[in-house]
């Protein structure tokens, strides 16, 4: 405070300051709101919200925790097929249908639980719906003849000349002139451990453990423990082995990219640090090189590299490596510029050679900073490797995009998402743990 300022001066100053504050407090949120308003129209949020396909969301959520078993009846041949998810890999053998399906020649009885029952007799389908009545449908040459109880048609029945579609809480029935299909939904992921052709399907954890420990052989002459592992690992529906490989590939991309970039960037960092490289032109050149590598961005490197190296994890690793060489180069040179000169001078005074000066004066100072940055990037690159994998065609990113593009295996998508999040979590904790250990150990 200058002497001579009066109370009224203070008052003026304070009021001015308060007014400025008030203005800022209103101006900044105002600007943000205006910007959001502009984006609202630029992104056409309204149209997008109307375009939301809630059915898709329902399918996605429903599929992620439940599966369906499909009983289909070919109206021409009269044959029945019972299969999980309707897939060939999940087909039941004719002598081992689940208990809720009774097939007797061309006739069948299917229990959809809670009183819902479907009976097929000489191709005619009759469906008992509790609280509604009996629906019967006869596939003919021209279409489907349907008899419904009196009254208006409820919304869960979809009827046309050639098709009847009935949705129930636990299932769905569809009748066309060629085919009758009955779906029943179950909670959980189908055949996650073993497919139906494995002798271990349906066994409890205790039975499996007992079989594995016993060291005996199964009826095919294989040791139980090995066969259990093999049937699980090569499960044709969930392909656990391939998924595990994809995860390894993703981590590998991140690891190779990060560590390779660190190896490359360390000497380059020395070349671009003010106190280690007296040449201004060299330093300037190195700096611009780093800016270029970082500025071109992983996406463009990925596109360019996949042309040369083809799809696969190596391409992804190189894309990460090139981008991060730029980032690390910049960070390392900054760390090198911030080293304490005193330790180097101390070493110099004892007559240490330049190599020893760097080895004992500089490296111990920068190692903790460098390691912590490298580990941080290793973790963040695991996430990047997922997305780069989707572009270059390697790792879990590829599996995820493929599963999403087919738009039907949402339980697999859920499985991959859980695995990806777990992978990132593990890398995160691992890098955090290593960071604490190594840096504490070096300090």
């Amino acid at each position, binding site marked *: 405070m200058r002497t001579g300022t009066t109370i009224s001066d203070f008052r003026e100053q304070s009021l001015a300051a308060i007014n400025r504050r008030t203005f800022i407090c209103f101006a900044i949120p105002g600007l943000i709101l205006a*910007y*959001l308003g502009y*984006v609202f129209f*630029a*992104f*056409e*949020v309204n149209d*997008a919200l109307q*375009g939301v*396909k809630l059915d*898709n*969301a329902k399918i*996605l959520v429903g599929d992620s925790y439940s599966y369906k078993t499909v009983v289909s009846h070919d109206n021409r041949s009269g044959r029945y097929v019972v299969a999980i998810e309707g897939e060939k890999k999940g087909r039941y053998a004719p002598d081992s249908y689940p208990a809720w399906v009774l097939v007797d020649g061309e006739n069948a009885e299917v229990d959809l639980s809670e009183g819902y029952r479907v009976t097929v007799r000489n191709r005619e389908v009759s469906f008992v719906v509790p609280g509604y009545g009996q629906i019967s449908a006869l596939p003919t040459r021209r279409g489907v003849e349907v008899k419904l109880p009196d009254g208006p048609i409820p919304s869960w029945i979809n009827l046309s000349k050639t098709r009847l579609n009935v949705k129930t809480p636990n299932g769905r029935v569809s009748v066309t002139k060629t085919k009758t299909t009955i779906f029943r939904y179950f909670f959980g992921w189908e055949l996650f451990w073993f497919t139906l052709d494995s002798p271990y399907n349906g066994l409890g954890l205790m039975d499996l453990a007992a079989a594995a420990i016993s060291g005996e052989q199964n009826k095919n002459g294989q040791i139980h423990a090995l066969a259990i592992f093999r049937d699980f690992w090569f499960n044709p529906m969930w392909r656990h082995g391939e998924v595990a490989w994809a995860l390894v*590939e993703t981590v*590998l*991309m991140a*690891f*190779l990219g990060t*560590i*390779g970039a660190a190896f490359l960037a360390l000497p380059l960092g020395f070349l671009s640090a003010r106190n280690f490289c007296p040449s201004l032109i060299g330093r300037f050149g190195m700096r611009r090189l780093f*800016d270029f590598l*970082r*500025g*071109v*961005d*992983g*996406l*463009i490197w990925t*596109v*360019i*590299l996949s*042309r*040369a*190296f*083809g*799809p*696969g*994890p*190596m*391409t992804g*690793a190189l894309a990460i490596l090139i981008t991060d060489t730029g980032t690390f180069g910049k960070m390392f040179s900054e760390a090198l510029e911030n080293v304490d000169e005193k330790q180097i001078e101390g070493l110099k005074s004892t007559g240490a050679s330049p190599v020893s000066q760097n080895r004992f004066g500089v490296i111990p100072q920068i190692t903790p900073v460098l390691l912590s940055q490298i580990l941080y990037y290793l973790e963040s690159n695991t*996430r990047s490797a*997922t*997305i*780069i994998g*989707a*572009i270059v*065609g*390697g790792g879990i*990113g590829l599996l*995820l*995009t493929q599963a*999403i593009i087919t*738009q039907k295996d949402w339980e697999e*998508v859920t499985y991959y998402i859980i695995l*990806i*999040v777990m992978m*990132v*979590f593990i890398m*995160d904790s691992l890098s955090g743990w290593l960071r604490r250990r190594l840096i504490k150990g070096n300090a």
Partner: protein
Amino acid sequence: MATASYKSEYIRLTHLRRLYSGILALVLILLFFGGFYTADRRNAGGFFNGLDKLFDFPVEVISEAWSEIDGLPELLWQYIPSLVETVNIAAVATLMGAIIGLLLSLFSTRGLAFWPVGIPLFRRSMDIMRAMPEIVIALVLIFIMGAGPIPAMIAIAIHTSGALGKLFSEVNENCDMKPIDGLASVGASWGQRMWFGVFPQVVQNYFSYALLRFEINIRASAILGFVGAGGIGYDLRNTISWGKGRYDDATAIFLLLFITIVLVDQLSSVVRNRVLGSQK
């Protein structure tokens, strides 16, 4: 005698340490080359085969673009709207992420939390948001909402909330409690304590982190465009998969992306230095 034993002990420890470091370095190198070998084997084209072809594609692209250099300014102009969309996705996502991250950080900092029992809950939710790769959320939302900028925006915003929330809560932990206690002693509500006691202390750091995140998010938004979320990444994929004949377009997009990223990078580092410098 004692000195000699200290000396031998010291030398023994140094050797041991060197041995450990050596083993660690060896393991790292083995892992690196083993990994390299594995990745190379699982790649469609090998590393050494591809090395000769590394410059084929850039040369092809640049030579085509060079032969049609006159059209380049027009192409640059043509792709500006997509670029604006990409930048907008990043900006809105950063803004939303910063707002949500701010709330999460206040809810999960010891001493500031509105509901202290919920701290672990908010921390875990931030961890999960941070661990979610953007592509996962973006692809699922594209399935529900159709392609467009909004899925990318939401996906990046979710990841940003988690990442910024963690950084913000680290900033909050370092803030001086005295003004907050003072405000509490005169009966200020929780909102008032945060607004008048915490924000003036942390706003510069928040701003600097948010700006850094904006830089990262521009890259993320471009890359998400490539998997179908609109913006300049989407155009890039279309021109690249078109192949020969549209490499001039690809060059224009490369240039725009490069210029934007470098520009934002430089600008944000200048602004950050100034903001953080004014703090002292």
